[in-house]
């Protein structure tokens, strides 16, 4: 039971004005615990959809996802959510921080909501580890893009997840900052042993993973590693 995610025969179709549209077709894939998997492919190839299905954010049309040992197809929204609680973290392209709140408050929020004690200490510690020890009480909208993404990474890592999903985490950042964020993500992964599933359209990021998957038109083109 070494696989944290098992995807088998996964298909996703949606109803579009032009008729039924197949976004993902017959995907098979395994992610080992502690593995860093990079999913790449051009825009529109279905990466985000796949990631959403793996995390149980959405329901597949057919096929199965086993997330952390639990099948998702037979579970409702609330039950799927319960599987993620405390075990899954997310980093998004557009950060999705709570504006108006400080960096510390942003990191504390999921900790508090999942009922962890000493949320403030934990949040502060993680923020220091991403290099924001001096900006704890700054409102997040005053931070730079790179700093905001660091807060988001701290927020994701603070819950000590088994799996971290990152969808285009560098998409809104300049190359240099993007590089730093990538380094941070992989560095933290190395320290914590968390599985990392990183989605990107930039091919050069792909090499950083233990394994790479390239997608095109809803299918896996090839898998390296």
């Amino acid at each position, binding site marked *: 039971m070494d696989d944290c995610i098992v995807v088998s025969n996964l298909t996703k179709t949606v109803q579009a004005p032009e008729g039924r549209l197949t976004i993902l077709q017959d995907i098979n894939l395994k992610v080992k615990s502690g593995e860093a998997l990079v999913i790449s492919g051009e825009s529109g190839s279905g990466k985000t959809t796949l990631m959403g299905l793996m995390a149980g954010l959405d329901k597949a049309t057919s096929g199965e996802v086993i997330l952390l040992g639990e099948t998702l197809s037979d579970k409702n929204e609330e039950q799927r*959510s319960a599987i993620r609680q*405390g075990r899954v973290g997310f980093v998004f392209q557009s950060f999705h921080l709570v504006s108006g709140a400080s960096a510390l408050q942003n990191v504390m929020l999921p900790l508090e909501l999942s009922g962890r004690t000493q949320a403030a200490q934990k949040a502060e510690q993680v923020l220091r580890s991403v290099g924001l020890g001096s900006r704890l009480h700054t409102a997040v909208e005053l931070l730079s893009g790179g700093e905001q993404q660091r807060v988001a990474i701290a927020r994701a890592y603070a819950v000590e997840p088994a799996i971290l999903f990152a969808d285009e985490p560098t998409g809104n950042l300049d190359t240099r900052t993007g590089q730093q964020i990538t380094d941070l993500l992989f560095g933290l992964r190395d320290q914590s042993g968390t599985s990392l599933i990183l989605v990107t359209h930039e091919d050069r990021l792909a090499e950083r993973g233990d394994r790479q998957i390239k997608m095109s038109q809803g299918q896996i083109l090839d898998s390296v590693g």
Partner: protein
Amino acid sequence: MNFLVPRIKAWWLLCLASMITITIVAASQLFTQRISILLDRQAAELLAADMLIDSNDPMPASYRELAQRYGLQTAYTIGLRTAIFIQDEPQLIELKAVSAGYPLRGTLERKAGLFEPAQKVTQGPLSGEVWIDSKIAALLNQPIELGMQSLAANWVISYEPDRGGSLFNLAPRIMMHIDDLPATGLLVPGSRARYNLLLAGDAAALSRFAEDVKPRLSEGEKLQTLDNARPEMRNALERTRLFFALSIVLTLVIAMIAIAITAKYSASQEAVKVAVMRTFGISSRRLIRYYLLELLKVWLWALPLGLLAGYLAQFPLQWALGLWFGARLPETGLMPYLLAALIGFISLTGFSLPHLLNVLDTPPMQVLRQIRQSSTPRNVMLLVLSSLLTLFLVLLLIVNQFQLALMLFALVIVLAGFIPLVLKLILQLFSRFGRNRFWLNNYLLSRLLSGQRNALFVMSGFSLTLLSVLLISQVKDQLLEDWETQLPQDKPNYFLVNIPTAEAQPLSRFLQDNGVSTSQAYALVRTRLSAINQQDVKTLTLKTERGRHLLNHVFNLSFADQLPPDNQLLQGEWLDQHSVRSGFSVEQGMAEELGLKLGDELQFTLQGETFAAPVSSIRSVVWENFQPNFFILASRQLLEGRPQTWLMSAFIDDSHKALLKPLLQQHPSVTLLDISELMQRIKGIIQRASVALEFFFGFATLSAIIVLISALNTTNPMRETEIALLQALGANRRQKLQSQLAEFALMGVLVGVFAALFANLIGWFVGYRFFDLVYSFSVQLWVYSVFTSVVLITAFGTLFVYRSFSISPMRLLRS
């Protein structure tokens, strides 16, 4: 301290809106309660106390001791009829002996001479003094033989608060101190006297005392409470109270609209937070708990501020009242504060929670694409149901009466649907006319019409506020002028009572010959209602205190050949002097209180004789017309030949005042009652209430401004982009300002036009329908309405968007 700060976006707006709601409830409850107590006190003046024990025999001292133990003020009065001699002619008088402290409520007015100015005093005659009725003012400064005593009359009584209770059966009054009574020897065992123990104090103590004393009362000892004010007074008070309650409810509804709109905005701002937390696997139960806690924090902030503001709001109100009353307002309990806290919480959670729950349903997948809120039909249902339920609950708590709450609820719903609809129509009408003006049509109007900008919300909020203010001021004027406009110019200001049968015709002729208009003369026959449908009234159980009061008191029966003016026949037929049958015509309210129907047999007792007849008709009576009005009119043949005196009303203006002296000399037994005093009082009450109302509409305006700010908040990103775009295109500050000003000003114009139009329409309708008035179109109203709304909306709107003017056009390149 940080953990006390709510973690909801725009929570301070939500807090402000809740605070205003709490303030309105607290202030209005405190105020209406006090006004109610005050009004009851004014009614109490008719008893000269809050409560009294009435008996035909001396009362045990224990009642008074008991009252004093409850902290009540007490005073005694003893009333009896006796005769004095005026130039060797016997004159029946009503002697009243009063103790120190009388009157406990209201004031006496006395004059040094008939034509001297009146002075108000709070204490009746001292030992050795005798005060006399103006009717026998000729006896002033002369010794009056009262039984075995001779006392000098030193004051004329011009107003006696508790004389209204028996308006129509007065012999001239002589008032003296109770300590002087024994020496007169008038009070011997078996003499017919009325002993009253007057009581006053706070409501709780009074009701506890009443409960305590009731079982001890012997037969013939009756507890009288406040509920028996005169009908004309009661009606005016009730109307004022209802009018007041309605206005408060309107104000409150506007405050709740502010909560609802702010909540919607706040919740939409939570979408990102919720969606991210969902991806982190936080259950919706935890999120609901989280938001409940946050709302609780908002409430906890709003509560002390709202209660404090409500408490403070009383002082200007009190000040306004002091101008008329010079009295400290009575204390109220904690109830107003508790109710305000409860309503604050209910409206905050009731309006916010469904919006938040709707956000909780945001599909987590959205966080990976674009977070936008969509409502499922189930959530829309939930939202609508919850808002309606909250509204109804609040109304119910406020008016405390299911049916009235339901009526108000329906009214608010109709308004809520109707106002935006009409505004939209007006807008569309505008855009049709503005077709050729490109900027107006394509730019401004389409902006306001697009749902995104919430312009209709803002405009509806302001329209409702402004319309309410306009209507209140109109209705107020209407209420104040009610008597003047409704009554003929020569409305009666005097009642002439106690006219002997033989003098009725000559008196009436005397007045008319001298150019004084009078009402018809009515006979007064003092009887008691002894049985209804052969059942002794003593065995009847009546629901209302008022009904019981009606049964226990002397009835003044009269007859009339024609239906008196302003009376309307509702059921049955009017029996005139030619009718073979005889019967009674009963006033509608009385019929209700006593549960009387057509055909029910009424039996009256008069000096041991009884007579009975069926109820032949039911009438409505306009009590406020200051004409002689009667609960029960009998057929002529039932009353003819029975002991009776006559009564009429007259309009005696200043130029005719000189007639009064010869009139009283020619008709010494006639008593003259000045009733303009009573009218002044009723006017005063309405005036007081309306000043208070204007105050409350200040809160409504604040709520409308919150609605505006909430809506501006929602549309802010859009607005900022627009401003940035204008700047990128090279617009200067003035042009940017103009673009915004034009939008606000247009909104203001629309709101002003709407409010004025409907205030006029409703005013016209009400005036036409209910008061037979020709409604005059008021230009002032339109100017006021449009001006106010344009200034308010433009000022606050511009103030709010002004900070966006410094936004860099770079904003367009990012995002």
